[in-house]
């Protein structure tokens, strides 16, 4: 029922009667070996595909004719699940989408909910959000550098990248209780205030990281293998970026100086002085340079944010919105503080009722819809949130940058060799948790 044309199943969907749905399954590829064209199935279990990404390659000899990405292996229905949870519980779900940038997911969702509620988080919470998300950007780029380096043969880069990321995760753990999936940014502010040694911990990181970034540069910038594998590979022009909707470091490496932190600043990030690095080559090497410079710019933002970190509350005062418990950091993450448990269990019946109602039912959010986007490490991370006035989201649609960027794979890898497909996917930096949601 289908023929192969440049790697795509040319079958049009059958809309008559019951929905008959077919996929880009292996069975529909009629001739795996044609005259000169070979169809190769790469993935979904492949060490270089960042999780479970499957690529169907059409090859003529070593040359790639087309790449068809097949996704959905990690689909867990987070958007649907969120419709059956309260607004606050949504944070716990969305943080698990793009697991290398959990704080960005929380931030974008919370900004959307806050705009629906018509509230704004206190200044201290905003600044802490900026500090932590910028550290998160560095951590995410470090994983990209580590895994991307490993895939292209720079094995030692993997060890260094993960080593420094570990320090950032230690900071997250000390503040949120968890290394990933923090659920720390909540509608209205933060789950808990930062610890007393927060600034010290950040400072010590700020002292370590710039030197380390110099090490990565020494390791890769003039490494002939690295240059050979990345220069001129996977070129994406500005026009292509617009057409494919590609955002983030990929678009900036193609010369499009667009950054949502500058264009639509959130959490007061516009008060800090930083540059948006761009390159004009648009190849994998340009993306490497852009990401490297972005990490330095993130450090600049953190430096300034630490200097102006204001005092004050980290959650809105409205008792109908703020989480009633005073959370405390325990060995297994954030939990109710012992004093608070004593208060609601032993002292005040009303406090217990209030706690119970707010925790089980949450708060209602006015009718309406918003679209809120932040600049995640991979590009525009957008949350289109619809409320019907109840205590649960009516619909949350997530515009995940990896999902959109992945469409450009075919364009970027076509004409290159099979080994370049690895370099292209590595430079895309897709996170399948975000792609499949």
């Amino acid at each position, binding site marked *: 029922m289908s023929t192969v044309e440049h790697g795509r199943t040319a079958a049009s969907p059958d*809309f008559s009667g019951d929905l008959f749905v077919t996929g880009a399954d292996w069975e529909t590829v009629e001739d795996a070996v044609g005259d000169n064209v070979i169809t190769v199935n790469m993935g979904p279990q492949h060490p270089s595909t960042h999780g479970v990404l499957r690529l169907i390659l059409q090859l003529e000899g070593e040359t790639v004719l087309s790449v068809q990405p097949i996704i959905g292996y990690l689909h867990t229905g987070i958007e*649907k699940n969120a419709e059956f949870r309260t607004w606050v519980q949504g944070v716990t779900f969305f943080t698990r989408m793009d697991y290398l940038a959990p704080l960005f997911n929380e931030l974008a969702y919370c900004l959307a909910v806050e705009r629906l509620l018509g509230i704004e988080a206190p200044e201290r919470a905003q600044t802490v959000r900026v500090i932590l998300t910028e550290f998160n950007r560095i951590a995410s780029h470090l994983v990209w550098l580590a895994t991307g380096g490993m895939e292209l043969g720079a094995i030692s880069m993997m060890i260094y990248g993960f080593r420094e990321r570990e320090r950032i995760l230690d900071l997250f753990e000390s503040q949120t209780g968890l290394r990933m999936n923090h659920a720390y940014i909540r509608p209205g502010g933060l789950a808990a205030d930062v610890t007393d040694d927060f600034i010290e911990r950040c400072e010590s990181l700020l002292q370590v990281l710039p030197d380390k970034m110099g090490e990565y540069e020494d390791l890769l910038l003039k490494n002939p293998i690295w240059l050979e594998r990345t220069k001129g590979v996977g070129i994406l022009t500005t026009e292509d970026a617009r057409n*494919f909707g590609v955002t983030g470091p990929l678009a900036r490496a193609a010369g499009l100086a667009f950054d949502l932190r500058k264009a639509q600043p959130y959490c007061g990030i516009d008060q800090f002085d930083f540059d948006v690095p761009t390159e004009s080559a648009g190849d994998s090497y340009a993306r490497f340079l852009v990401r490297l410079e972005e990490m330095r710019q993130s450090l600049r933002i953190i430096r300034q944010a630490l200097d102006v970190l204001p005092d004050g509350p980290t959650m809105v005062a409205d008792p109908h919105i703020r989480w009633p418990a005073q959370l405390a950091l325990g060995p297994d993450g954030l939990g109710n503080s012992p004093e608070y448990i004593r208060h609601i269990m032993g002292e005040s019946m009303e406090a217990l009722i209030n706690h119970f109602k707010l925790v089980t039912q949450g708060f209602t959010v006015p009718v309406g*819809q918003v679209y809120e986007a932040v600049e995640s490490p991979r590009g525009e991370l*957008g949350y289109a949130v619809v409320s019907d*006035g109840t205590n649960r989201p009516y619909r949350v649609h997530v515009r995940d940058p990896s999902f959109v960027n992945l469409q450009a794979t075919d364009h970027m890898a076509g004409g290159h060799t099979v080994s370049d497909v690895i370099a292209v996917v590595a430079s895309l930096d897709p996170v399948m948790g975000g792609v499949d949601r």
Partner: protein
Amino acid sequence: MRDLEAIERAVQERFPDVASDIARGELTLFAAPEQVVDLLRFCRDDAALACDYLADLGGVHWPAGEHVLERQPSTTGWPEYRVSRERGVVEINYILRSTSRNHWFRVSVATDDEDARLPSVTSLWATADFLEREAYDFFGVRFEGHPNLLRILMPDDWVGHPHRKDYPLGGVDVTYHNEKFIPPPDERDLRREVADR
């Protein structure tokens, strides 16, 4: 930086029957299905709008009839939310972004949920490819003219479109009031269950 009224005027000058709404600092234009391609092309090519990015495309299902949106046990005193609609629609929201003018706005198109069809905009932006496939997968909207309209996130042989509000969530009814009993996995046949309803 962003002048939503100016965008609104520019579009309505060309498409007078497009309704609009500005709420929470966001502009939404409500277009009819047959004009959506023309409208989006205008937004992309017009020098003042210059929407070079299709930032997002997502669906929302608003079913017809009366629905209890939220049911809580009667002891909590929490109200029941009911909503009633004449026509069931799937709403597709296009988020258009201009990087040169630094603005964005939403174009909202409603299509009948019984026979959800919209023209594809893959010819305007390649971005729409995956996003339309996702909307088809989740809401059953058939984007006419899409080159490869197949399921993208759900398994290929899945029955039904899970983000529609009338999509059953699984489990079988038991005699207890308001309760569901989830059978053990080897006794489950949820797909047939869904197809039979």
